[in-house]
């Protein structure tokens, strides 16, 4: 492996890892704050990717906008979707056992997948990167790297920073963290905790949808894409420590590296490598790298 190939694989690892982080952060947030295991989280990623495919013509026809307008429209729609879903399916789950949460969200996956099949069909689709970002950057003499992949990494980093800022530096973030520690106490201090949870849930959904939309031009859009992402994100969340955003970031980057280089160096074992990594880490630290406080 020469230097340029190595650099490309490193960039790919980074981009994949950051994308995983975006999806996994919503999963770990919803678990850490509301205590809900949301198996349907991968479906939001899938919905995002299909939005990027199906919304683009609609947005172009009505608003005349391109890729970025589609992103904005999708983001707004996904917040609304998250808000409604929380109200309809999740609000009563908080007091139930984990087992029932698993069951309910498993049911939601089936519903989302079949609705997707009814509305847009079961074909594989490609999504074009916007012309502004369609170029490539030369690396060395023969290699090039697509600008769009750098754009994905940039978007993910920006969102990660924004998330950190909201949680660590704002009053809203403080209230949310307090709510995760002691729900009743925060409620009795006059905070509308139900509304707050609904907002956090909607934000988690919106981030996963956004990740799906941004990833669509690279990964293409296909049935079942949400489920493969979901399982990997579980691994990320478990390695990082459930509920820990910092852990999710580190674990996602680690898995990005292991998976990307695994596919290059050990193609036969690539599928298993990630799980071996998880087993090893859990043997060493049974509660993940960072345990949420």
């Amino acid at each position: 492996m020469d230097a340029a190939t190595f650099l490309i694989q490193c960039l790919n690892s980074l981009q994949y890892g950051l994308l995983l982080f975006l999806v996994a952060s919503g999963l770990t947030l919803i678990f850490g704050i509301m205590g809900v295991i949301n198996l349907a989280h991968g479906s939001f990623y899938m919905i995002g990717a299909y939005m990027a495919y199906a919304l683009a013509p609609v947005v172009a026809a009505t608003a005349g906008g391109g890729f970025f307008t589609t992103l904005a429209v999708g983001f707004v729609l996904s917040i609304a979707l998250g808000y409604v879903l929380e109200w309809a399916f999740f609000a009563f789950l908080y007091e139930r056992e984990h087992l029932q949460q698993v069951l309910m969200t498993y049911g939601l996956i089936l519903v989302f997948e079949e609705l997707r099949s009814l509305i847009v069909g079961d074909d594989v689709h490609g999504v074009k990167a916007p012309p502004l970002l369609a170029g490539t950057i030369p690396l060395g003499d023969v290699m090039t790297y697509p600008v769009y992949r750098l754009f994905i990494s940039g978007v993910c980093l920006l969102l990660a920073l924004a998330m950190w800022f909201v949680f660590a530096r704002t009053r809203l973030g403080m209230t949310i963290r307090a709510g995760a520690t002691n729900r009743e106490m925060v409620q009795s201090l006059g905070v509308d905790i139900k509304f707050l949870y609904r907002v956090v849930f909607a934000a988690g959904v919106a981030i996963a949808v956004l990740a799906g939309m941004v990833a669509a031009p690279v990964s293409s859009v296909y049935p079942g894409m949400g489920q493969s992402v979901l399982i990997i994100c579980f691994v990320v969340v478990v390695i990082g420590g459930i509920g820990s955003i910092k852990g999710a970031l580190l674990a996602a980057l680690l898995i990005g590296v292991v998976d990307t280089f695994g596919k290059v160096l050990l193609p036969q074992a690539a599928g298993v490598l990630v799980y071996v990594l998880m087993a090893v880490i859990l043997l060493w630290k049974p509660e993940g790298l960072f345990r949420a406080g």
Partner: protein
Amino acid sequence: MRDGAVLEASDRGKLAFLALAFGALALYPLVGGSFGIGLATKIMIYAIFALSLELLVGGTGLVCFGHAAFFGIGAYATVLLSPGYDPAELAWLLPACVGAAALYALAVGALSLRTRGVYFIMVTLAFAQMAYYVVHDTPLGGGTDGIYLNARPVLGLVPGGFELRGGLTLYWFTFGALVLVFAFLAVLLRSRFGRALAGIRVNEQRMRATGFATYPYKLAAFTISGAIAGLAGFLFAVKDGFVNPELLSWHLSGAVLIMIILGGIGHLRGALIGAFAYVLLQEFFKSEAIFGEFSRHWLLGMGFTIIASVALLPHGIVGIGRQLAERRARAARGGGKESADEPA
């Protein structure tokens, strides 16, 4: 301790239900056609599979979300250990398949039981995915296409041996296995070992404080559960004569969890009822006679049914009676839940 000679009313109800259920299964071949026999065999295989998970979830309080791995390994072992085109000897093939699943369960359990709660759910899922990718990606498992079982196993060691063919022979064999597994688990859960598991489920810390090393108990339960799941996998491979990686997929792990939750956790008969209800629901939504073209989207109906059952039946089908009784009691006290929550 209850007095063994006097059965409580609820015990009598349980026994009556079981006698009825197993009696109906024993008499079913008199009326069922070949399709019905096949369907009933499938239900019984899933019931064995669900019972194995119930030992973990309902008996020990360990939620395993990767149980399909043991099922799939039992099934794959059946095909891989059968010699090419000749039938294998049932007397060693069956123990070998069950043993393979048990061995994998021992390894997975030894590692994943170091974690607890949600971590355990996710770790068992990840180990199942690992097994899935091994059969999916390596030449061993024949990839996505799966492998065919060319000859059904034959019991030749004892006089009066038979070939474990599809149809009635397999039906009776599966029925026998189901009764044995049910009886075994019922006895196991009532034994000292089972009581220790129940103690771990309710309060593991207190069990440790009373001097039980809980880890070996949990590991033993996990291994037994994996072995029984392997038995179900063996039967499934013999029934279909074919295995593919989907037998290890997390969809199946989810489906078997749904069976026991649908039936009602904490009761062995819940696993029976759940397997029955799940397969029949699936057949219902898949039926072209009822839904026509739309039967292609049968998962939509399953999804909504699952969601509705979580929302409306928190104690499963077994718990419907209790739920109704509680509601009646609440109504009798006058004033529903809403008024109780109103601030004064």
